């Protein structure tokens, strides 16, 4: 008998048994790949849609504390404050600078004559704190020009046909003239409206409103004060709500979770992905095992232990999981990457590293469940059955 013990060799038999039955092997790999694609793609879209609830906050990199009326919930659900709030915030120790920000909705008449809802963002007249950090086209200083607005790049493609001149074009904004002087590179927000950036003083003219117009005070903390400490101090001394960038981003995400059906809908799709995976992989694997049950019985009679049989089935499951997961993940990455590169709807979409890990865990669960069901019938097979 053999002297050289190599327990891996029996796995080679298992893999050959599996890959030799091409139809079932492809069926199994397809089942896992399809589940992986469905779960990964849906989770990625879900997470990115949620992240858009915090995009407006994250775009403003220079501020690390947002101050607002206590009734304000997110960057889009705002209760304005009087302009005096700005000075009250500036008076708090630990504030390096504080700038006003106005966010409001308005309507514009498009070059084709259609009506389009826009978000108008008014930033500090002198510092321009509040505009996105990257310009797609134009110079930030041009925002100082009379009636100047910057438009977001996705919005510019929405309003203007390819090849049409955007810079220098005039828009009719709430019945007033606005001239596009630059295009900013920003990620669309959850509402996906066209966004126009302008100076605070211009915004007051563009957007009709009530007595109180100030949406937020953007604050930068002194180097020796943490944003959390400063936010607490501002709330204590002014009675206003103050949130750090991270906290306010999270508020925007939580608002979507609490007020939309998105988590349920995407959750259902992910569950369906798991069910489809279990169904396809489970049925195909059971068929494969059933077709080979006599061979497994013969192996048991010859002298392959139950433990080795379990290792064999685990090797078969592992191979299917590895190839299927790899294929599915590649397809999902291609879908998200291709979408992000080619479609404004997917702009800024990315796949957080946690999603492949979650998908891997779910695929493992699918494989473990189906493998367990399959192996039960093998282990229950009486080796004496090969003589019947």
């Amino acid at each position, binding site marked *: 008998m053999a002297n050289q013990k190599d327990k891996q060799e029996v796995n080679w038999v298992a893999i*050959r048994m599996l890959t030799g039955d091409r139809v079932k092997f492809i069926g199994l790999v397809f089942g896992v790949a399809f589940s992986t694609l469905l779960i990964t793609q849906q989770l990625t879209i879900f997470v990115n849609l949620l992240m858009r609830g915090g995009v407006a906050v994250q775009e403003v990199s220079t501020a690390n504390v947002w101050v607002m009326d206590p009734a304000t919930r997110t960057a889009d659900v705002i209760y304005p404050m009087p302009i005096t709030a700005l000075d009250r915030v500036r008076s708090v120790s630990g504030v390096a600078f504080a700038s006003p920000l106005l966010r409001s909705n308005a309507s514009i008449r498009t070059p084709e004559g259609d009506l389009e809802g826009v978000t108008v963002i008014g930033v500090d007249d002198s510092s321009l704190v509040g505009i996105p950090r990257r310009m797609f086209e134009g110079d930030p200083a041009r925002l100082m020009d009379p009636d100047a607005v910057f438009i977001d790049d996705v919005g510019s493609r929405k309003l203007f046909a390819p090849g049409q001149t955007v810079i220098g074009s005039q828009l009719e904004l709430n019945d007033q003239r606005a001239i596009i002087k630059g295009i900013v590179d920003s990620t669309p927000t959850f509402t996906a409206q066209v966004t126009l950036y302008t100076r605070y003083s211009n915004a007051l003219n563009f957007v009709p409103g009530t007595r109180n117009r100030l949406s937020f005070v953007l604050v930068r903390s002194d180097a020796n004060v943490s944003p959390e400490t400063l936010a607490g101090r501002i709330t204590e001394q002014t009675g206003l709500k103050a949130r750090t960038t991270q906290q306010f981003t999270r508020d925007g995400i939580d608002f979507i979770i609490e007020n939309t059906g998105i988590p349920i809908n995407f959750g259902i799709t992910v569950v369906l992905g798991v069910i489809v995976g279990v169904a396809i992989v489970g049925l195909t694997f059971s068929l494969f095992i059933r077709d080979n049950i006599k061979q497994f019985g013969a192996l048991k009679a010859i*002298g392959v232990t139950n433990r080795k049989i379990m290792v064999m089935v685990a090797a078969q499951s592992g191979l299917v999981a590895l190839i299927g997961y790899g294929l599915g993940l590649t397809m999902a990455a291609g879908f998200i990457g291709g979408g992000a590169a080619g479609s404004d709807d997917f702009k800024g979409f990315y796949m957080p590293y946690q999603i492949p890990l979650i998908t891997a865990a779910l695929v493992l669960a699918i494989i473990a469940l189906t493998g367990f069901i399959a192996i039960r019938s093998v282990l229950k097979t009486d080796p004496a059955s090969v003589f019947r």
Partner: protein
Amino acid sequence: MSRFAISVRGVAKDFPVGDDNIRVLHDINVDVNAGELTYLVGESGSGKTTLISIIAGILYPTEGRVQVFDTEIYDLSDNELVMFRLANIGFIFQQYNLIPTLTAAENAAIPLIADGMKRDEAVERGRVLLEKLNIANQADKFPRQLSGGQQQRVAIARALVHEPRLIVCDEPTAALDAKSGRRVMDLLREVALSEDRAVIIVTHDNRIFDLADRILAMEDGRITHDGRDKAILMQEDAQ
């Protein structure tokens, strides 16, 4: 060391049927010598498959003891029994039970691979045995590309490749024509039998009775004939 290859003492086997048990083997006592080709014959339901399964260590008896080459096989733990089978027993099944996605040489090498031998070495030894069985030119073919007789030879190669001391065969010629069946039996006798080995064959096939050294006939779970007087059995069968 006992002079018997197999010693069966007081073996009985019950199978559950509903709430009751039905006894299919009754107090079987038989010894099988090494170097003999022993046939186990009888009608369907006579208990011969149950007896050969018990002798081969794949079915626990309800009562009694079985010694295979001086080892009380049912005193072994489950794992020890599996390892004993792997080392000492070769199986030839009626339906061959070859793995369809492995070549003939790879199928022949299965017991060695199961025992942990390096694949290349195991397959090479399978190839050598196929050569001995005159199907070396079929070594790289898959079972579906082989005739019934060729598949049976691959099954024989698989049963012999690890040089077991006991070979148990279930209807090895049932699916073969008379000529192929006889050739398989000649091969089996030539390759398998030696002074320290034993071969037990369950068969209905009276065309090969004359090749047996000893015939055990079974009826209703009992051995009704035990001897070397093959003529009697062959006459009875002819009647």
